[in-house]
């Protein structure tokens, strides 16, 4: 009996001492580790925002945004982290905006695009064309920016994603309103509209009847068939079902989906302008 007591006591003592020691070490090292991680992150932001004081992280759906403030509490920049499907896997990248929503840097964090081909998205030549642009620019292939021939899918995916993220930043942090279309107030009729997709403009024909969208047809599109098929006819069907442009774009082809929605929006806002 005494023996078992002695054995158990030894084990308990060893266990308690171990736990106490580890708890102490843990409390000692955790703040150091946290500090180091923050210092590392700050250094990575130094590329674009050397004078920031504090930052606040906001997550919107799949994107992450770090809002950077200076000592006066003014917004001096936004660092967006987004993921976009490229030609061969996901592309994770940072998009740095200044306080007015103008792009000041693009940093590709990871990608698996083909070396020498899709890899062009990491080059200065490709990235340079985005500098200084904001939500006020079309950010559309063929208009103010270009894809790179031979790497069309990689580059157009990046263009579409940058356009999308710029829009999200403007809408959520810069107080830019996206047009709310009241479908009821659109007069009956058939209207055309177009908006950029991933591979070029998407043109749609929208029919309004009795204050409701009754038909959406795609007249023209240059999307990648394997991706496009994820958003069509899903998106038009959802718009008609909900009578709303606020549909879920998390298909396998977000840029095409957004393109379709924006084209319909374009058609309807054009109708409203003409009507009023």
């Amino acid at each position, binding site marked *: 009996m005494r*023996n078992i007591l*002695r*054995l158990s006591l*030894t*084990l308990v003592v*060893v*266990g308690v001492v*171990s736990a106490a*020691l*580890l708890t102490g*070490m*843990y409390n*000692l*090292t955790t703040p*150091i*580790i946290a500090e*180091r991680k923050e210092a590392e992150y700050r250094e990575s932001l130094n590329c674009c925002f050397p004078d920031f004081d504090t930052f606040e992280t906001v997550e919107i759906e799949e994107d992450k945004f770090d809002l950077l403030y200076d000592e006066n509490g003014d917004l001096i920049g936004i660092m967006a982290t987004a993921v976009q499907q490229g030609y061969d896997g996901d592309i994770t990248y940072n998009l740095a905006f200044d306080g007015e929503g103008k792009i000041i840097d693009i940093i590709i964090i990871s990608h698996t695009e083909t070396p020498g081909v899709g890899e062009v998205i990491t080059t200065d030549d490709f990235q340079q064309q985005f500098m200084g642009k904001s939500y006020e620019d079309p950010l559309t292939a063929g208009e103010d920016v270009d894809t790179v021939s031979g790497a069309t899918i990689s580059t157009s995916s990046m263009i579409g994603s940058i356009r999308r993220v710029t829009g999200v930043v403007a809408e959520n942090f810069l107080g830019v309103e996206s047009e709310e279309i009241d479908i009821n107030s659109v007069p009956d009729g058939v209207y055309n509209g177009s908006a950029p997709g991933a591979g070029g403009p998407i043109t749609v024909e929208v029919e309004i009847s009795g204050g409701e969208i009754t038909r959406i047809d795609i007249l023209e599109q240059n999307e990648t068939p394997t991706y496009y098929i994820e958003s069509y006819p899903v998106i038009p069907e959802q718009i008609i079902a909900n009578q709303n442009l606020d549909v879920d774009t998390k298909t396998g082809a977000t840029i095409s989906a957004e393109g379709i929605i924006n084209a319909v929006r374009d058609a309807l806002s054009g109708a409203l302008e003409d009507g009023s």
Partner: protein
Amino acid sequence: MKSDNVYLGDLTRGIVKENPVFRLVLGMCPTLAVTVFIVNGFGMGLATTAVLIASNLVISLFRKFIPSEVRIPCFIVIIATFVTIIEMVLQAFQPVLYEALGVFVPLIVVNCIILGRAEAFASKKPVLRSLADGVGVGIGFIVALVILSTVREILGQGTILGPDPASAIHLFGANFEPMALFAQPSGAFIALGLLMGLVNVIFKRFNI
């Protein structure tokens, strides 16, 4: 004078005659896994030696208080505690090394070298001798790791002091195509096997 010899013996035995890797064939897992780069091999050796010395010390210190029936669990808890401490220290002060060594840091606790020395030596011998033994075996382990990683890095990557591009020295010029085999798992096995053969030959030649 005699006591000096004993300590010296304890110290040097683990380096050559009873080298844990080349002679006792212990601690194989980390030896093969982390020796892709010299700095990683060296770092792992240091971390393991730290735990070895600490556990040898503590176990030897308290050897009269630990009943034999529960000695293995006690040793395990003591060793695991020091391994956790080392893991925390690495995470805080050497994050690059910590990431490179990965899951092999916690695996130090099942490195047969440490439990083996605790059982065979530290639990029976006085503190100073256990300390010397820990240092000796630790140095032997570091030496083995460094030798293997030197071979693997020079042949497999063409550098020393990689992978940090800031410190890496490309021995054969930046465009050299190294024997990638040695950076792979297969190369680790083969390199270690050949090195062991070499050590056997040398030891036989010098009657060690």
